[in-house]
């Protein structure tokens, strides 16, 4: 089972990194950017075939280490759920 975790700063938390990248892109001519925020992608491969169990375990990982609840929120998706039918991996 592969699980992809997205960790982002909560709304309202200033993202200085995102603001700097936004300024750089505006400088390159992408003046239509209204907002840009940076997050992290964490791909986890688990020895667990049951999606519900995998979600529970990854939720625990997020709570204990992967995200700091003061600043960040997380979401996850089961990657094997998204694979087209008949395609391996």
């Amino acid at each position, binding site marked *: 089972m592969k699980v992809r975790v997205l960790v982002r700063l909560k709304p309202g*938390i*200033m993202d*200085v*990194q995102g603001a*700097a990248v936004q300024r750089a892109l505006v400088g390159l001519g992408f003046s239509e950017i209204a907002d840009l925020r940076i997050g*992290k992608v964490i791909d986890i491969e688990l020895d667990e075939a049951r999606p519900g169990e995998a979600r529970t375990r990854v939720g625990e990982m997020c709570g*204990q*280490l*992967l995200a*700091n609840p*003061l*600043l960040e929120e997380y979401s996850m998706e089961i990657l094997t759920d998204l694979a087209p039918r008949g395609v391996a991996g």
Partner: protein
Amino acid sequence: MRFGVVVFPGTWSDCDFHYVVSEVLHQPVRYVWHRERELGQLDCVILPGGFSYGDYLRAGAVAGRSPVVEALRDFVGRGGLVLGSCNGFQILCEAGLLPGVLTRNECLQYRCQSTHLVVENVDTPFTRGLRAGQVLTMPISHGEGKYYADAETLARLKQQNLIVFRYASADGKVTKASNPNGSLDNIAGIVNPEGTVLGMMPHPERASETAMGGTDGLLMFQSLLGSLVEDGTFLKR
């Protein structure tokens, strides 16, 4: 007073702290490896600055869940003293031993400079030799030192007088211009309600000898030594 200096892979201020404790203060000190779980004979554990475990994921995040920090919870429960500086402060926050979190400097720059700190709380073993309003000069050296806590936590810090140091001007005024990293309320250091766990971004170990450009950091160590009484317990104010 028996000191321990914790060493994680990536710690860089361990030798400086060890030097100050052994050569300037003439106190017994040993290094504590990050996998150790036994802190029995120590009176004060120092978490030095650096980039523990590469500071991967978030500054101090992995170290905050390491074996030695787990042991630190019992140590704190028994009344042991903990001083976390720079990465050590980040680790204490990530471990939940202090509230809040340290985030990327608002200026996005790594700041290595001298700062002035106004002393807000002298009711801790680390600051009992200082006076409220005293201005100390100590260097900072970090990229992620902007203290953040939610409004409720900030209110509690203020109400319980847990803010120990704030960035200030040379004459002790807390101003935006004297805030090097965008820290909430110019917070540079806080303490737990018991006064036994102190986290601060500045480096007292780099201001402990005249040859290093200042000795204000030494005042904190001297406060600590002054708080130990003969029967091995600590003086309560």
